């Protein structure tokens, strides 16, 4: 191909598709390259897409039955010990009206659907015949001239462009190649996610989880779920399946010599979980690395001349205890990247200072504001007192509090004292409380 593109996007995940949609609407000529058989073919997530940016990309998406699985109006955070669960549960009709604030997605379906929407936007643009979504192509190298990105090499062919958006996901080999990330990234702040998709008769699923129409539930787990390894568990309701899995700190997994797939089976065997998931049929097992949201390992600079990095390739992810946010960050950062590229095209300048505007807008967006503000929460959630002792303590208290015996009942305060004594110390709790108050 002799023609030069305004932009080449590497990766048709949520970030790449968000960027592509924005470029198409801004009448830009671009190439979106995806290594999978189709957009979404290689993508795995928990996963809830939080926030309502999706409505910006696909207005009234809720009127369609395709793409997304369920909207979330029911949240649950569960503390777990070996026998018990103690949950904070919130459900509200407040979340029932679109635009929804969270939708559950299965990426193989969602990304493919979103790519179809991008194709529609391409068809409506001035470059209907010149912009492309190209699956099944692996980008081997970013072409650099005088340290400026000028295109890509794939399958032995070279494709040229004024700019490149790297949306290649967490295993960001090209981000490393261009020097924005170290060649070797250690396990310290990475987690391995493992997940099963379990299928049910749709009516059984809806009755079991109290779902109505397209409503859905998200449930996160702390404690016994991860068998002593730092991390947590999740369960999300899809249309006629559930996504159930764990994210496990990789360094801790290595030190404790544990197998992620074994821990997942232990989690499924837990008496409360076993009751919840009984009768289903496992239809897929998957795994993927996910970043932790710890700023210490994020690439410091997300741009260079002719190039910007977005989504998980930039390690944009946060779990501050309220929700695991990654896909919404991917979408927004993809949109911001495309806006920077559009402005650069207008100004005819794709140099380093023009690309820096992307990082500036990202810093001023809710993404970096939240990542910066909630670093203490990220550290707190990886504290063993929080991930192991607290869930045990809470479940111990729950067991006593909810045990009705035909004998005098101690005051709750006494029960709590006993539970603290058995699982932690006051000093640990004071430290944790102080950290928590500061972090959240």
């Amino acid at each position, binding site marked *: 191909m002799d023609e030069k593109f305004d932009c080449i996007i590497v990766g048709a995940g949520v970030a790449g598709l968000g960027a592509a949609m924005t470029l198409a609407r801004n009448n830009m000529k671009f190439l979106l390259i995806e290594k999978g058989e189709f957009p979404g073919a290689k993508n795995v997530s928990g996963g809830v897409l939080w926030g309502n940016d999706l409505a910006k990309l696909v207005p009234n998406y809720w009127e369609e039955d395709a793409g997304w699985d369920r909207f979330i109006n029911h949240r649950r955070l569960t503390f777990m010990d070996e026998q018990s669960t103690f949950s904070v549960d919130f459900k509200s009709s407040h979340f029932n009206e679109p635009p929804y604030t969270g939708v559950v997605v299965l990426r193989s379906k969602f990304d493919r659907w979103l790519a179809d929407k991008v194709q529609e936007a391409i068809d409506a643009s001035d470059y209907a015949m010149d912009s492309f979504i190209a699956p099944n192509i692996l980008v081997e190298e970013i072409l650099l001239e005088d340290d400026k990105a000028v295109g890509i090499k794939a399958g032995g062919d070279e494709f040229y462009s004024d700019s490149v958006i790297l949306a290649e996901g967490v295993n960001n080999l090209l981000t490393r190649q261009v020097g924005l990330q170290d060649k070797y990234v250690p396990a310290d702040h990475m987690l391995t996610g493992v997940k099963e998709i379990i299928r049910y008769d749709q009516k059984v699923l809806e009755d079991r989880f109290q779902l109505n129409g397209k409503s859905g539930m998200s449930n996160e787990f702390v404690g016994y779920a991860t068998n002593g390894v730092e991390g947590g568990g999740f369960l999300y309701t899809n249309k006629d399946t559930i996504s159930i899995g764990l994210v496990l700190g990789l360094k801790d997994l290595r030190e404790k010599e544990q197998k992620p797939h074994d821990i997942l089976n232990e989690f499924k065997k837990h008496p409360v979980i076993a009751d919840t998931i*009984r009768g289903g049929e496992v*239809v897929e097992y998957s*795994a993927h690395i996910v970043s932790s949201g710890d700023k210490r390992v994020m690439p410091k600079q997300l741009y260079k001349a002719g190039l910007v990095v977005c989504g998980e390739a930039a390690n944009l992810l946060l779990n501050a205890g309220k929700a695991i946010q990654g896909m919404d960050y991917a979408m927004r950062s993809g949109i911001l990247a495309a806006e920077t590229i559009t402005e650069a095209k207008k100004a005819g300048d794709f140099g380093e200072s023009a690309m820096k505007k992307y990082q500036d807008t990202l810093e001023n967006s809710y993404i970096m504001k939240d990542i910066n503000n909630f670093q203490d929460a990220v550290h707190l959630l990886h504290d063993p007192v929080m991930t192991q002792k607290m869930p045990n303590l809470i479940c111990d208290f729950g067991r006593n509090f909810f045990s009705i015996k035909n004998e005098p009942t101690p005051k709750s305060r006494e029960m709590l004292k006993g539970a603290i004594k058995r699982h932690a110390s006051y000093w640990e709790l004071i430290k944790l409380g102080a950290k928590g108050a500061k972090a959240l």
Partner: protein
Amino acid sequence: MKLLSLPERLGLISYRNQAKSDIKPHILVDTDICNSTCPHKCTTYVCPANCYTKDENGKVHFQVEDCIECGTCMYACDQGAVSWEFPDPEIGRGVTWNYG
């Protein structure tokens, strides 16, 4: 519900180019490092697809056929034994997720 073994789980996965017997491996492992200086041989337990195994003599072996491209080994190996690339769409292995 019945718990699945890892081979049963991997049996649910759609791998690419399964009809091809001669695929190009996307991960190369220098098992000499695993079997000489590595203190933990961690890939033999952290890999979610069990692509790394230990034989009866404790020696590490690697096969790429079951790899699901998760990336775990690339970070877990701190000994420089793992060279990790994405699989070639035409002549490599790797996955196509049905749900994802």
